[in-house]
């Protein structure tokens, strides 16, 4: 059913359609509207067979989720940024124990400096946590990925993180096709846990494992994600059959057939990139884009296949590894091992900075002439950076960086108004 609605509300409705049994969450922007919506549904009786638990922290949220999932309940939670970091110990534990929890990460920057706006530094920090990470491009895809996520998680007995850009998606009103109960019920079977806490068949879950078996446990976790590489496209195909929509899968290309330059990105920025590509195509530039939906497991083969005919690749990513550069870019390079393709990393949209077509077109154009530096920070204000660097060189106690920059930005605005 087509509706014009906020992304968070759409996700909440999608989760509700999946018949969750336990939902626990701690509020953090920009995740709040999702769990508020669900909380109301549970309290209002729309979700009568579900427990909604207002926990005291994200650490507790993931811990409650671990308990309920281990006891055989379909379990959902959502968080973002600092909240994700606060639950990290439990995040790793959930995957280590193989519990099929589904969690929305409303992507937001990690502080300090504290910042509530979107980038991918939160999810990407959990790259190695053992969770499957799926990135939604649109609110429609966010809705669809959540439905697929439960199926994937429960099939593999692994937790799945559905990542959607904070504010950009979560707070955006768009037209969304909300599936019917019947459609979802037909697609998503009842949760059959792989292991469950049951007094009639007791087991001990969470044993201490020493050097004699730890590698094997870890390998098996890896093996499950390798299985996910097979399963994700299958589920997407099944989804398409049931819902008549392309959603999910490992990667999705756009204008790749003859592209010399391929942009790679994740999440909502793909929309802006596609618009930019359309403009450049109109100008005769052979450029395309590859959206990565499944960041973990990382689809090395699919990426390699998509890029094999390109001359260069530009990775646009909303986070970076301080001290080295691109994170997604590193994975892309791994996929291109042995293929002679030039690669560029563009770090963009940190802490919610708008990514404009103009700026993108500028860097993409440079890339097509191979004039782009290996690592570019999109729209970086060098004047501010240089000023602060000079300040620090001049005075050891030059004051806090963020506050200095804010002051500089203020001066800059005053001068130009």
């Amino acid at each position, binding site marked *: 059913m087509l509706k014009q609605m906020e992304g968070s509300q759409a996700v909440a409705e999608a989760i509700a359609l999946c018949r969750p049994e*336990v939902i626990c969450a701690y509020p953090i922007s920009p995740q709040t509207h999702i769990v508020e919506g669900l909380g109301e549904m549970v309290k209002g009786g729309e979700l009568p*067979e*579900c427990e909604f*638990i207002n926990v005291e*922290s994200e650490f507790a949220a993931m811990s409650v989720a671990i*308990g309920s999932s281990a006891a055989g309940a379909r379990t959902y939670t959502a968080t973002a940024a600092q909240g994700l970091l606060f639950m990290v110990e439990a995040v790793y534990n959930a995957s280590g124990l193989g519990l099929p929890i589904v969690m929305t990460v409303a992507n937001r920057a990690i502080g300090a400096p504290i910042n509530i706006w979107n980038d991918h530094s939160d999810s990407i920090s959990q790259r190695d946590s053992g969770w499957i990470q799926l990135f939604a491009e649109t609110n429609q895809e966010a809705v669809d990925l959540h439905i697929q996520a439960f199926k994937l998680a429960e099939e593999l007995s692994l937790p799945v993180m559905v990542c959607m850009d904070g504010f950009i998606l979560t707070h955006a009103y768009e037209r969304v096709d909300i599936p019917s109960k019947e459609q979802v019920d037909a697609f998503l079977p009842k949760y059959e846990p792989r292991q469950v806490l049951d*007094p009639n068949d007791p087991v001990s879950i969470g044993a201490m494992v020493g050097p004699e078996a730890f590698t094997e446990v870890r390998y098996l976790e890896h093996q499950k994600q390798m299985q996910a590489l097979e399963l994700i496209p299958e589920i997407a195909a099944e989804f398409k059959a049931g819902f008549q929509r392309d959603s999910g899968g490992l990667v999705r290309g756009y204008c790749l057939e003859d592209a010399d330059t391929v942009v790679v990105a994740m999440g909502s920025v793909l929309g802006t990139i596609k618009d930019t590509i359309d403009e450049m195509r109109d100008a005769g530039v052979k450029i395309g884009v590859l959206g990565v939906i499944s960041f973990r497991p990382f689809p090395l083969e699919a990426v390699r296949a998509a890029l094999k005919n390109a001359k260069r690749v530009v990775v646009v990513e909303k986070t970076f590894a301080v001290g080295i550069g691109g994170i997604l870019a590193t994975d892309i390079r791994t996929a291109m091992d042995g293929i002679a393709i030039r690669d560029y990393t563009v770090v963009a949209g940190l802490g919610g900075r708008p990514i404009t077509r103009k700026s993108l077109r500028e860097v993409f154009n440079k890339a097509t002439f191979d004039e782009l530096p290996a690592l570019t920070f999109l729209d970086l204000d060098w004047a501010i950076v240089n000023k602060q660097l000079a300040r620090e060189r001049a005075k050891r106690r030059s004051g806090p960086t963020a506050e200095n920059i804010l002051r500089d930005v203020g001066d800059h605005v005053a001068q130009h108004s």
Partner: protein
Amino acid sequence: MSFQPVKFYQTGTFTVGNRLLEPDQRSVQANMERTNSLNSGHRACQGCGEALGARYAIDAAMHATNNQLIAANATGCLEVFSTPYPETSWQVPWIHSLFGNAAAVATGIAAAIKVKRLKGETKEDVRVVAQGGDGGTTDIGFGCLSGMFERNDDVLYICYDNGGYMNTGVQRSSATPPAARTATTMPVGAEPGNPFGQGKFVPSIAMAHEIPYVATATVADLRDLEHKVKKAMTFRGARYIHILVPCPLGWGSPSGDTIKLSRLAKETGLFPVFEAQYGEITGSAKIREPLPVEEYLRPQKRYAHLFGKKPAYETIVRLQALADRNIRRYSLLDKEAN
């Protein structure tokens, strides 16, 4: 205290069993068919109070729930010695997640059970216990514990208090008693051992949440302990039992003294044994043979610095004052009081 010991003159109800009692009055531990929830073969130290307390408590809970019980366990000695791959000692469905989240994991389990029952997927009234040591309860797990309490989740949390981080090599916790030596409160400097004026008594904090039931117990009085676990199981909502469990390793006591020291902790008044409902004390276990705190302190090497060539009289007096305060506060000598 509401618990009425059976009037019986040979050994009364002090012993674990009593062949002369009616079967329904006998302790769970005396039963040949007891669950042994924590099975033989675990790797606890000799004379481990926690291993004993855990079997006492979980067996009693199993008995009270007709074996419909799930346990969540914090990281710590109990977890490490009971479940090293490839063997587990637990005979109950059991999960270990993290050091600081046992209460929250239990909340999740309880929520799942509630939904399963609501949906008619299970008929059984499965109950949940969470358990941890004092570190996992009073320190790192305290946030989750308080959250579980204030939401009044249907969980019985059991803290096995041995007064320190014994698993990591006897460091101080917020339950380490004053003057006690630990690896991080060595008996050196101006105030040897753990400082006075620090630490917290979680049973009181639990009471401040006004949860249905809070109790303390020791491994020296099995019947009292079993009574409290069973009673806890008659309530819905959050419940807390804090059990003193001596640690021969951390306390520097002979392995055979574990129960004796528990008894002395209670008899000297240093560890008050009481119960409370909805934030109010409803009874305390009376001291049977009042004893000075020295009787409890002296057998433990963690207090050896108090009894050197120059005994630390002042410190002993301060500890006695703590015991006296407990005696007053919990009416431990007043046989007329609750």
